[in-house]
């Protein structure tokens, strides 16, 4: 058994080639694979069967929490902790509590979106094996990469490399762990 590697990476020159390769790899039965590109490619979601919608739920949760916090805070301040009787007007004067409730809803939802983005993407991440591939820096410029991970049950160091070569990859290289 040779030294463990993270996976095998193929390099492509266009988004079209990357999407086609990702589709072929899925068809072949590979599941632990990821694509890297310098800009978002919508077709990859479908090619790699990405259906993660947790962020939307997080943001909704953040918004609801913010709304409750905003209204609760004002109710507590104006009606419980520091009630001011001005001409017998109601302490729970809800119409004037709307703006701050709204602002805190947006604030909490946005914070949920931001931290959700970091959390779901596992950032900050100081080390990741894919950066060991020479030329991977081009993934943030004009190159497109497809990586099949060694953790995939179908992964075979030789066969997977041969398969990736067959996808008209510009270059295929092993990803050191």
């Amino acid at each position, binding site marked *: 058994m040779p030294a463990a590697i993270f996976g095998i990476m193929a390099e492509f020159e266009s988004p079209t080639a990357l999407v086609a390769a990702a589709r072929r790899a899925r068809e072949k039965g590979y599941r632990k694979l990821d694509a890297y590109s310098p800009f978002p490619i919508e077709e990859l979601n479908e090619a790699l069967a990405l259906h993660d919608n947790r962020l939307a739920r997080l943001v909704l949760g953040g918004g609801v929490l913010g709304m409750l916090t905003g209204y609760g805070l*004002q109710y507590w301040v104006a009606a419980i902790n520091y009630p*001011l009787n001005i001409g017998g007007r109601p302490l729970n004067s809800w119409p004037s509590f709307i703006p701050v409730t709204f*602002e805190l809803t947006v604030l909490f939802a946005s*914070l949920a979106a931001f931290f959700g983005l970091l959390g779901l993407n596992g950032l900050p991440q100081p080390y990741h094996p894919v950066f060991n591939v020479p030329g991977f820096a081009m993934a*943030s410029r004009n190159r497109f990469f497809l990586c099949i991970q060694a953790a995939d049950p179908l992964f075979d160091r030789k066969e997977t490399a041969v398969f990736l070569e067959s996808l008209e990859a510009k270059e295929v290289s092993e990803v050191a762990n």
Partner: protein
Amino acid sequence: MPDRELLEADGGQGPVIEPGHTFATVTDKISSVVLTRRTPVFWFAVLSVSFLLVMLLLFGVTVLFARGVGVWGINIPVAWGFAIINFVWWIGIGHAGTLISAILLLLNQKWRNSINRFAEAMTLFAVACAGLFPILHLGRPWLFYWLMPYPNTMNIQPQFRSPLVWDVFAVSTYATVSLLFWFVGLLPDLATLRDRSRNSVARLFYGVLAMGWRGSARHWRVHDQASLLLAGLATPLVLSVHTVVSFDFTVAILPGWHSTIFPPYFVAGAIYSGFAMVLVLAIPLRAVYGLQGMITMRHLDNSAKVMLATGLLVAYSYLTEIFMAWYSGSPFEQFVIWNRMTGPYAPGFWALILCNLVIPQLLWIRKVRLNTVALFFIAVVVLVGMWLERYVIIVTSLHRDFLPTSWGMYYPTAIDWMIYLGTIGLFLFLFFMFIRLLPMISIFEVRTLLPEARVREEA
């Protein structure tokens, strides 16, 4: 003019990006401004001038802290002088950034992709300048945290029925959300800079900020969702901010302030001045850094059109104000308008009409919209006009209210001017630091504009 040729390339509408660019060229062109190109003399010149203005700001603020708000021209009856004028002006300028980054994203206006980054940065810095003023105006600025509700031994709490407290929440939320939105957009570009810089300090700096972004399809999916959700949240937020600012005025029973048209009128004015600032910054920058291929005439033309449209909304609001004063039958309302037009501040009012209503009508002419020099000067005129508008609203309404015995005049002092000019310096200083250290155009979004970014389906 090379701009003219570009414009004719696409049925007169003009391309949003110059033909011939590839993923590599846009990446190199935008990142070279930060990483490899020699910093132009223009940059040093603006930075030096703005640095001097920042010193002026620090001097003014020091005098203010040492001696109190009496160093300003404010008094009774005009207790809201430059501080509130500048606050409203700056926060209005910020609005264009969010409009471009959020509303145009939701409307799928692709042309925004090359101007959204610096417009968002402009928002952040404008809000920073705006936020200074209410705090400086507090009199005892070191107690600003009393504005927030927190358990305290005095057992007092802020009044949540007051728009002034709503303002604290609106502006601080706006600043936070703008910062998050801006940073989310920057994340992939920071990774680009990390991968492209050859200097180890720069690589560490961008590497830490990029937080390990590697452009994986999973990253992009969440990133896309986050951008859209933040845009959806920022859109009502930006409309709410200037609405809340206008509530500061409308809840007062003062004639000239007590009006239901203020919220939409303020929002339109905010976008008007914001787009003017976008043009004032974009026109010199694209020339100095040779970015005419990315910030094309199409962008300037579209921004000019937005300015014209919002300018007309503002004009409509002025007319409505005048009409409502007459129609209300209230002698006090009528007096305020008459006093604005013929009173001691009449030159300010007529200058405002000239700057905001008359001169921008030149934008109807296509030739003017395609002339960068003319466009730059019209944008400056609009910025001046919008500042005068706030001056007129605040000072003329306050200086003569119901009782002639309580009338008075307002004259700004040297310290007022120092602090105002100082914030312009602060804004430019922050902005020019930004264009030196971070990509001023969103690299990954410009890549998506290229024809080669399209995935072709093979049959």
